[in-house]
């Protein structure tokens, strides 16, 4: 029994030992302890104690005198902004700058007083900015480009005079347009002063424009227009700046002044016809206008030359006759071509004594008139011209007028049909007859016009009859008409007179005719026609082996010269042939 008891006790002891050991080693929960101060505040304090951030809490800083609670809130805001703009967490990079700007902004606003409209304007700017970034998923926050834009915008906006109660939503529209338009590729963004000048100039101009409208409905319509074009205006302006950086001097507000006055006059110039312009064409036009203004500041001075230029030119293009030629789709391009040419030829196309005299409008009116039936006849030469060729015709004409404005535009008594331009172009068009495509392509016609302009301007009073509206009485018309008639009458079975050869024939013979009008265009003799016919006859007959398209024009030219100086009679075949051989020999 004792043995049993001892055994039982040993067993019980064993069990007990295991039990105790397990109890000792039983897992326990342990208290984690209570925090008694704010870890986050310590982070905030470290942040504000950084040397580069001390200005935030120093006197005059946005958080000067702030309580610890306010500092913690501020710190959390900065961290939040960090997160929003994708900055390195905890550094406040970017966020600090934003906070500083907002603080300055608030002080700036306060400086205007409680009810000043600038308070409202600036509040709008901030709201617009925040809304823009919230609404644009691609805008991950204040990229350097956006920061520059905002800085440039804010730097200028305080110079604009806002009146209480007036509409100023356009300010936000310009800012949105700038933010969404000015990408990081434009070098202008590296130029803070010029960027500010552009944005400030555009904003001021648009605000002043709105303010000039007296009815609210008018203002609303204007705002709708600006919403449509604000981006293109800024893009066009930025391109102008970038391409002509030396012209836009930011010093003393010169660049901004150019922008403001150019845009003012640009908008006034196209007023009422805005629907004729796409956003792209407005961008190009404004860029052109701004470049022109930078190169020739006088056009945006007090006399508002640019505005008058645009208004009158637009008027000419959209007149009844203008529309027939140009069509609405060409308005912007023609206006751009006119603007560019005037800008390049200011000295000759703008009369310093009468700067508002609208040469460009007169030129375009003359071109349009030249294709009217009264001048151009029933021919379809207008149909040969593509839009690009028509534009080229405009440029060619402008350039020629720039060389000799008085000769080509003067003394019309306000009737463009009487201008030399109209008479010349009309003469050329009429002279080509009912099938102008036989002799010229569209490109060829433009070339032909240029040739005749160059020649006619040297002898306008003899080649043109500016006392008569009809072109039939012009020597120029008669000369080219006879050339055409001669080709037709000569049949030209060898088809030597291609369009190019025809052009060359005109180029060579017109100066000869101009110098020998009485001899070659006298009465009913049709000397020119007969000369062409004779040359073609030789080309088919005795000299068929020597005459080709290359030497035919010079042959006709030299025959005409001989005829003009009475050195030849067309009826004397042998003499004609002999002279032809000499000419051909010399031309070989």
């Amino acid at each position, binding site marked *: 029994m004792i043995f049993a008891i001892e055994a039982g*006790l040993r067993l019980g002891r064993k069990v007990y030992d295991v039990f105790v050991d397990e109890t000792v080693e039983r897992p326990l929960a342990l208290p984690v*302890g209570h925090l008694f101060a704010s870890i986050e505040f310590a982070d*905030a304090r*470290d942040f504000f104690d950084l040397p580069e951030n001390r200005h935030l809490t120093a006197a005059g800083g946005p958080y000067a005198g702030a309580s610890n609670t306010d500092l913690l809130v501020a710190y959390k805001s900065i961290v939040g902004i960090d997160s929003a703009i994708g900055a390195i967490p905890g550094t406040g990079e970017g966020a600090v700058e934003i906070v500083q700007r907002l603080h300055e902004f608030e002080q700036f606003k306060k400086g205007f007083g409680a009810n000043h409209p600038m308070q409202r304007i600036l509040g709008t700017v901030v709201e617009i900015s925040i809304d823009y970034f919230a609404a644009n998923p691609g805008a991950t926050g204040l990229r350097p480009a956006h920061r520059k834009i905002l800085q440039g915008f804010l730097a200028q906006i305080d110079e604009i005079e806002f009146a209480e109660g007036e509409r100023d939503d356009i300010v936000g529209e310009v800012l949105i347009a700038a933010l969404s338009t000015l990408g990081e590729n434009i070098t202008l963004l590296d130029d803070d002063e010029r960027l500010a000048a552009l944005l400030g100039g555009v904003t001021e101009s648009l605000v002043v424009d709105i303010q000039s409208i007296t009815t609210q409905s008018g203002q609303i319509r204007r705002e709708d227009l600006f919403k449509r074009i604000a981006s293109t205006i800024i893009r066009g302006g930025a391109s102008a700046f970038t391409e002509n950086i030396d012209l836009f001097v930011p010093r003393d507000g010169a660049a901004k002044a150019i922008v403001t006055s150019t845009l003012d006059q640009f908008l006034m110039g196209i007023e009422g016809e805005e629907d004729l312009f796409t956003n792209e064409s407005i961008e190009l036009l404004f860029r052109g206008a701004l470049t022109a203004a930078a190169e020739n500041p006088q056009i945006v001075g007090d006399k508002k030359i640019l505005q008058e230029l645009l208004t009158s030119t637009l008027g000419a293009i959209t007149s009844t006759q203008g529309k027939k030629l140009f069509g609405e789709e060409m308005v912007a391009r023609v206006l751009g071509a006119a603007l560019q040419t005037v800008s390049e030829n200011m000295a000759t196309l703008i009369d310093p004594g009468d700067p508002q005299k609208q040469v460009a409008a007169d030129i375009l009116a003359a071109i349009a008139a030249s294709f009217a039936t009264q001048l151009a006849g029933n021919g379809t030469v207008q149909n040969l011209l593509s839009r690009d060729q028509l534009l080229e015709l405009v440029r060619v004409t402008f350039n020629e007028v720039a060389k000799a404005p008085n000769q080509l535009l003067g003394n019309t008594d306000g009737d463009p049909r009487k201008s030399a331009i109209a008479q010349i172009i009309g003469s050329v068009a009429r002279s080509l007859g009912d099938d102008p495509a036989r002799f010229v392509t569209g490109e060829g016609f433009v070339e032909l016009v240029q040739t005749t302009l160059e020649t006619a301007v040297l002898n306008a009073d003899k080649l043109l009859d500016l006392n008569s509206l009809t072109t039939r009485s012009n020597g120029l018309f008669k000369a080219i008409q006879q050339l055409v008639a001669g080709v037709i009458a000569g049949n030209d079975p060898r088809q030597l007179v291609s369009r190019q050869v025809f052009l060359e024939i005109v180029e060579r013979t017109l100066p000869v005719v101009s110098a020998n009008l009485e001899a070659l265009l006298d009465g009913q003799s049709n000397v020119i026609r007969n000369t062409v016919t004779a040359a073609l006859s030789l080309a088919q007959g005795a000299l068929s082996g020597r005459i080709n398209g290359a030497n035919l024009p010079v042959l006709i030219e030299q025959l005409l010269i001989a005829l003009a100086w009475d050195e030849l009679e067309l009826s004397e075949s042998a003499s004609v042939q002999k002279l032809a051989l000499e000419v051909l020999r010399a031309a070989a």
Partner: protein
Amino acid sequence: MNGSSRTIRGLATLFALTVLVFIAGCSSLGYRATQDKFVRAVELDNAAAVSPTSDSAADILYQELYEQLSKETIAKLDSRLRPNAYLIRAYSALGATELEGNLGKASDAARAGINAGAIEGSRDRVLLELLDGLVIYEELRANAAKDGLQQLGGITGDRYDLAYRNAFETARAQYEDALGQARRNTPASTIEYVHYRSWQLLVMWRATIALINNPDARLAANNDASRIVDKPSLKEAANEHRNAIPAGAPLRALIDAQTRG
């Protein structure tokens, strides 16, 4: 002696022995319930620590535990259980904030637990060595409550020097000593716990200095603290303890949750 009397005597001896064994075993059996109660108290306490709005009945439980585990009661326990019992008594006193002189009592209990033969390197030994540091932590916490630190109340440099600086330094030394008690037999969870409490102490030190109003005094305090911990900053010293806790461990997750704000 005849056979029946021997049998009776034997049975009586057996019975007495059995009773003795039983009595001894009863105290130890009941002790598990005490441990369970301690776990419940800690769970409540920890819930309040991370979620201050939750009501905590931990204080009451801690006090009950302290009173329950009197010296006399502990003396009745198997000797192998006594260090653990003193551990619970000490940590219960620590948490029983309504108990008069609770912090002194906690220290006494910890010393008694060490003297009761807590095995070197064991969980209980390390935690008993840590207790004095935790007592100082609670004293710091009491001062912080007086100064309104939790509400971001500022303090002067002098106040910091008087009420906080030396206490932080001493507590830190105690924590380091506790860590120094770790041996190969020390459970990883215990070491992680000491690292957690060390991190906690250092971040509170940093947070207290942040509330010194005067910038110069603040800078001086930071430089002083950095020198003491022998690190460029208290933050870096705290991070070392954080990083000593394996990723994925609950205490590491707790640290990260608390630093996220």
